Structure formats: structure tokens, C-alpha cells
């Protein structure tokens, strides 16, 4: 077909005016999933149930935190009406093991249980009630072993060995400069020990989904954070080829790292394989969700920081012990993240860091927003306040004296070109000073006000040489719109809009013409996990690469059609036109037909796989430990009731350099939401264990912030193009939480003169600290 023959039957001068260019990058396009979410039509895992499930599964969990399994008696369970099967490890066809970094966690326990959430059996029944009744009637005979409840117990002489190699799961070290010499020569040395707590993700949408085995494909509709990795883990554990597993992510209500470890998937898969052709439903309730899932690591951080007379930092010596719980989960990565962020955004010439992971019989600890980095920020920012006091120096001046500038190294020795921490802190302080600080004048005597700050950095992506890549596909549709296919998982953060807006910007299409298909292992290519603040940067780049190749195809075809050089073609609002003469134009829908007729696919794929450099074993040094760094600074103002110990956050300002805000509303949502979770971690949230049993596995006792706990958070978006990011964007997911906690603690210190070192700062803890400050006896 010649160009002339197709051109003659198309109108050359349409009546409509081409709307002005509307850049999707930087625009608050309404969330593509907004409408279904506000009408209740969005289908989360648990919503797939009542209509779809033929059979129902439930999981039998260990009643012991540490025990050998002597016998599993399923007879009473099988006698319950409607029960079709009770399955144990003996029924699992594959390795029966999962684990994101080390494969060490039996899907169904074989000989031993290591925490009180370990799964032992899966019950399948015709109704959920039958399944529940049967679950409670599986009789497991245990031979109890001593429970290692705390890190102190695990490290004590003669402690029971939880694994043959002992109770230390692993270590991670940083060595740079001569710390001994620097400490000996220092003018001022401050030392303190911080205890951060175990935190639960507390996403609202508890684990739930469906699964079916049709004899060829095992299809699971189950929420995770990395569908392609989950597919591999499920296939290995269950012993079926990975190609025969399909994971489809339902609408997902939050994750925050809590869906990184496998949850319901293997149990659903096992039940489905045993009952071919039947759709299996499985859902946890809140208590089971909290009892089964991994948690944020509780860290004990011993920190020594030294400075010269002027307040220039000279050395840091840091020892960290991390409660890893029963299994490895992502603990190795968390330890490494803690080590690599140990001195934050500060220049410290001599650094020694030793991080030890310690096994206990608590829940496994793994991914949660800001893992490792967030605990260390509490310590390094806490130390800056203590050092400022010891030096009788201004807190801001001390920080600014030591904060890195472009070209300076962070803990890993990596030199940071885009260091914008000074600007973040300046912006946060300027915002704070826009309104007069009310101070303590006129307050009743039981109330004390204070303000504090934090400055933080964050390495984006997996880093450390770990393969980290995203893939994407973009296709032009017959109507001239486009569809983005990404393996990336939307968990609420706004990934779908981000990818649609990036592709739409590149292709000159209006948002309404954009579509997205995400996180279906059958339809989309692997894009890594929705974690490590990586999706905007990694998958955003892959989408942009695919879309720009597609753009080239469109320009080729449009150039022919318009009879101009492709460089003289503008793509705008679904039209291609001659840049100097927009009357010479063609719609994308028409171009689609033309392109196909000319043999163009109008499909393109993108792969983004930048390399980081592994940190040297023993020193933790690397010229490129992370692909890029993010910076932020917070200012918080609190009111402390010194009679009750209650802390109220009155103001909170969060400034973050996000590179470029693809969708400013989503970015602001991440910042404000991160501050809320940080406030929870600072003041109220803690998973409390007693001998491995969680005492507060529910929202009645596990307290998370409500609308009345949050002040109006003032978010400041700073945009310095990241040279490696799509349209200059990098990411924002984790840093807002990391910055929030130390700023609140800093404000408490300012208000009371007491520097909290144990989290969360509950009213009781605060009250005790104040009494100790005043030398008043504290009841035990």
C-alpha cells in the first residue's frame, strides 16, 4: 500500500482545534482507580470471596513459640461436617520452603515451630465455618523447647541455640578511617543507646484472595508486592513449573513492606492443587494477620559520636543488634541498610559500624517502610541533638556544619552529586518560621512546648550490586490511546497514575486516553518489587524508554502521512501535526491504522537495569552502593503534658527533594502519610511480646494514629532533577517516615530537656522519664 492511497480518503483539515499542550508530568491527574474505590466497586482480595469461592481454606498455626512437633492428629478435624481435607507438610509437592533472601521458612512446619505464627496445616472445607471449626480441631502434639524471647536472652551465656550455627543470623560492617585515633583526639565524645520497637504494618486490607488449579495453570488472585518473585517462590515450594503459576494482584489496601514475604499464596496454591477445578478462598482476620506476618526490626543501637572544638564531626562508632525473629525474611538487607545509613547525611571521616542480626522466637522481622534506615535516623539525629547540648552549640548550626554538600561521601564512601539536604532543611525551617513560634509563655505549668528537626538521606533501590531492574511495555490502541503494561504492583501509592502519566507525556496523549495493566504475571513483564522507593525511578524509566521508542514509531508514520521530516512533527493531545502548521495534522486513531498498514507494531518494550557496585565485604565501602540518594528534612513542634506524659504534635513540616513530582498530589499524599506512620512509630505503636506471644494482636491494643493525632502536616516538595530518573523524578515512598520520627523526638527533647532513647514515647514512658529527670522515684 502506498502512502498516497491511504491519504486520499482522510480529511486533511478537521474542524476541531487541537487543544493546547497539557503536560501530564507534574499534573494532578485524578487517580485512575479513584472512582471504583469511592463507590465500593473496587475488588480487594476479600471481595473476590462470596461470589467466587467454591471451597474455603484456613491455616492451622502453632500455639507454641518454640517446640518440636511430635504428632499432628487430623482425625477430629476431618470429622467436622463439610471438611474435605487437612494438609500438612507431607502433602506439599515441592521444597515446602520460602524466603526472600534465604530460603529458610517452611511453608508448613515439619519437625519444629520457631514462632507462634508458624503454619502447620491447611484445612479445606465447603464453608468457611466448617474450615474454622476444623482448624481449631487439628490436634498438634508439641514437645516444648525453651523460648528465646529477647535479644538479650539469645546472646546470653548458655542460651538455647535456635539454629545449629547459633543465634547470630549474620553481620554487616563499615570500616573507614581510624576511629580509635579520632576518638582519642576528639574534643567532645557523646555516647547513648537507643531501643527501637517492633512495629506492625497494620495495613487495613488483611491478607485474602482466591486460587484455582485448572489442571494446567495455578491462578492466584492474591495481594503481594512483587508478583513475579512470588510466582517463583510458590512454584518452588509447591513443586510445579513456574510457567504454570499465574499471579494476579487484586486491588490492594496498603502494604508498607508487609506484603513482601509470602503470606496466603502457598496455602491457597496447595489447597487449589488438591481440589482441581474448584476456586479456593482464604482470608485471615486481623489477629491472624498480625500473628503470622513479619514485623519491623526492633534495634538496639549503641552510638558514640565525636567532634572537635568547633563541632566538626570526627568519628562515629556504632554497634547495632537487630531482633531478626524466627526466620531470615529480608533481615540481611535490613542489616545492610542500617549499616549503610548509619551516619545519615553527615560527613564523618572515621566510621566503624557493626550490625548483628539476632534470632529469637518472635515473629520474623523483615521489610517495612524505611527499613534499617529509619531506625538509624532516630539514632544519628538523636546524637546530633545530644552533641549540640554537650558542645553548647546551636542544633541547626551543628547540623549545617556537618551536612554533606555535593561531592561529599556518605557512610558507604559513595560521593553524592545531588546532595540537597541543606536546601531541604532550609526550606523546612523557613516554613516553620513563617509563623511565630509560640514558645512556653502563657502556657499552664503542666504543659511544655518544644520544637525539633531532622535531616535525613536515603539510598533508593536495592543497591549493593543486587540485580535491580524494571521492564515495561507500551502499546498504541486502535482508538489512538495507549496502554502501559507493567509488572509493578499498585498497593495504594499511586503507581498506576505515575506510569500512565509518564507514558502519556512521552506520547502527547491526554490522560483520558491512557490505560494501564499491572501486576499480572501472564500479561506483564517483571518490574521488581513495590519497595525500596524504587518504582517511580525504575519502572518509570522502563515505561519512559518503551514510550520513547513508541514515539519514534509514531513520528516515522506521522512524518510520512504529513509529508514532513519526523523532527517537524509535534504530538499533542492525541494528534500529530506539522509543528509549523497545525492544519497539517492527523489523529492518533488514524495513524494507528496507517502504522499497522505500514507494518509498524506500535508496541515497544523498555528495560531499565542500572548497575550498582557491591559494598566491599568487611568495610562496607562502595563507589555506587545505591543508584541515587534522596534527601529530606522535617521540623516538628510538640506540646508535652508533664503531668500525664502525653505528647501532642502541634505542627509538622516535611520537606523532601523528590527530583520531579510526576503527580504532586500523590507525592504529597506519600509525604503526609509517611509522617502519620512516623508519628505512630514515635509515640504509640509497639508490638508487645510475652514469651513469643503477641499481647496486642488487634487494633484495640495496637494503637495507630487517628485523625485527631495528626496536626495539619505541611508538605514541601523540592524538585531538583535527578539526572537518572524519568523526567528527573526519583521517588518519595520511604523518606517521609524516616524523617518524621527523629524530628518528633528532637522536639520532645527541646520541650522537656529529656532525650528519649526508647520507642515509642508513650505517655507512661514520657512520664517515667520526667520523674527520673526530677529525681522522683518511679514505680516499677
Amino acid at each position, binding site marked *: 500500500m502506498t502512502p498516497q492511497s491511504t491519504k486520499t480518503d482522510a480529511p486533511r483539515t478537521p474542524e476541531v482545534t487541537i487543544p493546547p499542550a497539557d503536560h501530564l508530568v507534574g499534573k494532578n491527574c485524578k487517580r485512575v482507580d479513584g472512582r471504583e474505590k469511592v463507590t465500593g466497586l473496587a475488588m480487594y482480595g476479600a471481595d473476590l470471596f462470596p461470589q467466587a469461592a467454591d471451597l474455603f481454606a484456613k491455616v492451622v498455626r502453632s500455639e507454641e513459640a518454640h517446640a518440636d512437633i511430635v504428632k499432628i492428629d487430623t482425625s477430629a478435624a476431618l470429622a467436622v461436617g463439610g471438611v474435605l481435607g487437612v494438609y500438612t507438610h507431607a502433602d506439599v509437592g515441592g521444597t515446602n520452603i520460602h524466603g526472600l533472601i534465604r530460603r529458610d521458612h517452611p511453608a508448613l512446619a515439619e519437625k519444629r515451630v520457631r514462632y507462634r505464627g508458624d503454619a502447620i496445616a491447611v484445612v479445606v472445607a465447603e464453608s468457611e465455618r466448617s474450615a474454622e471449626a476444623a482448624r481449631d480441631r487439628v490436634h498438634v502434639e508439641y514437645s516444648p523447647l525453651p523460648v528465646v524471647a529477647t535479644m538479650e536472652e539469645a546472646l546470653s551465656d548458655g542460651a538455647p541455640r535456635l539454629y545449629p550455627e547459633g543465634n547470630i543470623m549474620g553481620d554487616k560492617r563499615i570500616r573507614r578511617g581510624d576511629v580509635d585515633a579520632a576518638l582519642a583526639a576528639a574534643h567532645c565524645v557523646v555516647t547513648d543507646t537507643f531501643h527501637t520497637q517492633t512495629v506492625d504494618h497494620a495495613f*487495613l486490607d488483611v491478607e485474602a484472595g482466591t486460587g484455582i488449579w485448572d489442571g494446567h495453570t495455578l491462578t492466584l488472585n492474591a495481594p503481594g508486592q512483587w508478583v513475579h518473585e512470588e510466582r517463583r517462590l510458590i512454584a518452588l515450594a509447591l513443586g510445579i513449573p513456574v510457567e504454570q503459576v499465574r499471579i494476579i494482584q487484586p486491588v490492594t489496601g496498603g502494604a508498607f513492606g508487609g506484603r513482601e514475604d509470602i503470606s496466603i499464596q502457598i496455602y491457597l496454591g496447595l489447597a487449589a492443587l488438591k481440589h482441581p477445578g474448584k476456586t479456593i478462598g482464604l482470608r485471615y482476620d486481623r489477629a491472624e494477620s498480625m500473628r503470622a506476618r513479619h514485623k519491623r526490626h526492633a534495634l538496639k543501637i549503641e552510638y558514640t559520636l565525636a567532634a572537635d572544638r568547633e563541632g566538626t564531626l570526627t568519628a562515629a562508632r556504632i554497634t547495632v543488634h537487630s531482633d531478626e525473629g524466627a526466620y531470615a525474611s529480608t533481615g540481611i538487607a535490613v542489616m545492610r541498610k542500617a549499616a549503610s545509613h548509619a551516619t545519615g547525611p553527615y560527613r564523618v571521616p572515621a566510621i566503624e559500624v557493626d550490625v548483628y542480626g539476632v534470632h529469637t522466637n518472635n515473629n520474623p522481622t523483615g521489610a517495612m517502610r524505611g527499613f534499617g534506615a529509619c531506625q538509624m535516623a532516630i539514632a544519628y539525629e538523636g546524637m546530633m541533638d545530644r552533641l549540640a547540648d554537650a558542645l553548647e552549640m546551636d542544633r541547626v548550626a551543628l547540623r549545617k556544619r556537618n551536612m554533606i554538600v555535593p561531592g561529599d561521601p556518605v557512610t558507604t564512601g559513595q560521593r553524592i552529586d545531588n546532595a540537597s539536604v541543606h536546601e531541604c532543611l532550609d526550606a523546612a525551617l523557613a516554613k516553620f518560621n513563617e509563623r511565630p513560634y509560640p514558645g512556653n509563655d502563657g502556657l499552664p505549668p503542666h504543659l511544655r512546648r518544644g520544637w525539633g528537626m531532622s535531616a535525613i538521606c536515603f539510598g533508593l533501590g536495592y543497591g549493593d550490586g543486587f540485580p535491580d531492574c524494571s521492564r515495561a511495555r507500551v502499546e498504541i490502541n486502535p482508538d489512538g490511546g495507549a496502554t502501559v503494561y507493567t509488572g509493578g504492583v499498585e498497593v495504594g501509592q499511586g503507581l498506576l497514575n505515575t506510569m500512565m502519566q509518564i507514558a502519556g507525556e512521552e506520547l502527547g496523549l491526554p490522560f483520558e486516553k491512557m490505560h494501564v495493566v499491572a501486576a499480572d504475571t501472564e500479561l506483564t513483564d517483571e518490574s521488581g518489587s513495590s519497595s525500596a522507593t524504587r518504582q517511580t525511578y525504575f519502572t518509570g524509566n522502563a515505561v519512559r524508554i518503551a514510550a520513547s521508542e513508541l514515539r519514534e514509531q509514531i513520528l516515522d508514520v506521522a512524518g510520512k502521512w504529513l509529508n514532513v521530516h519526523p523532527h517537524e512533527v509535534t504530538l499533542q493531545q492525541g494528534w500529530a501535526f506539522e509543528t509549523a502548521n497545525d492544519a497539517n495534522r492527523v489523529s492518533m486513531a488514524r495513524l494507528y491504522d496507517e502504522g499497522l498498514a505500514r507494518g509498524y507494531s506500535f508496541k515497544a518494550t523498555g528495560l531499565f537495569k542500572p548497575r550498582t557496585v557491591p559494598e566491599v565485604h568487611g568495610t562496607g565501602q562502595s563507589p555506587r552502593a545505591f543508584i541515587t540518594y534522596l534527601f529530606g528534612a522535617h521540623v516538628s513542634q510538640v506540646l508535652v503534658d508533664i503531668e500525664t506524659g502525653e505528647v501532642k504534635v502541634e505542627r509538622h513540616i516535611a520537606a523532601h527533594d523528590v527530583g520531579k513530582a510526576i503527580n504532586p498530589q500523590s507525592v504529597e499524599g506519600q509525604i503526609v502519610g509517611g509522617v502519620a506512620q512516623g508519628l505512630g512509630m514515635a509515640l504509640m505503636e509497639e508490638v508487645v511480646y510475652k514469651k513469643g506471644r503477641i499481647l496486642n494482636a488487634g487494633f484495640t491494643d495496637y494503637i495507630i494514629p487517628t485523625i*485527631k493525632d495528626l496536626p495539619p502536616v505541611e508538605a514541601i516538595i523540592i524538585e531538583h532533577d535527578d539526572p537518572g530518573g524519568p523526567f528527573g523524578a526519583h521517588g518519595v515512598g520511604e523518606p517521609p517516615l524516616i524523617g518524621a520520627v527523629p524530628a518528633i523526638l528532637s522536639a520532645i527533647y527541646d520541650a522537656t530537656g529529656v532525650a528519649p532513647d526508647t520507642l515509642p514515647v508513650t505517655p507512661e514512658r514520657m512520664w517515667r522519664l520526667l520523674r527520673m529527670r526530677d529525681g522522683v522515684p518511679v514505680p516499677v
Partner: protein
Amino acid sequence: MPSALAPLPDDIPLTRITCTINGEQVVADAPVDCTLLTFLRDIVGLTGTKGACLEGECGSCTVLIDGKPVTSCLMLAGQVNGRTITTVEGLADGDALDVIQEKFVETGAAQCGYCTPGLIMSARALLNDNPSISESELLTALEGNICRCTGYASIVEAVRRAHRELKS
């Protein structure tokens, strides 16, 4: 075995529930221990109402009974006999969203969206009753609804905008 065992399925008798849901009369049988939340989701099939904590703490399961907001996880289905229930599915008029829903979309108040139906119902009850509300009344009305994603700012803004629009 756990100390408290889930009841055997045959131990639980059924009861007949007759009520009005989103303007339609519903007659259905439910186990006597069935909560309103389970009744709505699993028996009537209206899954817009969410369960999250299942102990009355998070507000995700909020629905209106005769116009008043309740946490449906704490009510038995038998308690709604003869009463009128509104769920999130009952707010939009065909394609036209309720003003609160519209503002939630506009401000980006639905991130993961799981708390959204409950929050919208709490806000609906507040705005139904009060042509004029103060900021503190607004916060108190939504205090029983937990959101883990947003930090609430976009939610407060959505309800404020809806309130302004309803007043004008």
C-alpha cells in the same frame, strides 16, 4: 489446639432477616451469630463495606442504619430487622457520584482506598445531620475511622469541600 474452639457449623441455627438496603427490600437467612458486616458482604453480596479490625476500632465497616453511622462488625444481622441500611453502594445515583465521593476522588483521599467506604459513610452521616459544622465537629465525626495511608489531610479536605458545596 486453641483454648476457645470455633463452633461446629451444624450448631448454629439460621434466622430470617428482613430489612431495606440501599432502597431495596432484602429478605435472607443468616446464622444467628452473623454480624451485619458478614451479612452485607457474604450473604447479600455488597462487598463495598470493608472489614479490617473486626472489633469496632477502625471504622472501615461503617454503614448507616436509619441514617446513623454504625460499625457493622459490632452488630448482629438480627438487630437490623425492619430497619433501613445505607452502604457505600447506595450513595451514587447511577453514574453521578455523591458529592462526598466526588471530593474524595478530587483530593486524592482514596490512596489504597480500603478505609474509604467507611470514611465516606461517616462523613455522609455528619453532613446529613448538620448543615453547618465546625472543624472540630468534622474531626470528631471521623475520629473513629482509621486510615493508614494518607495522614488524613486529603480526607479532611475532601469533607470540607463537600460541606462547602452542600451549604452553597
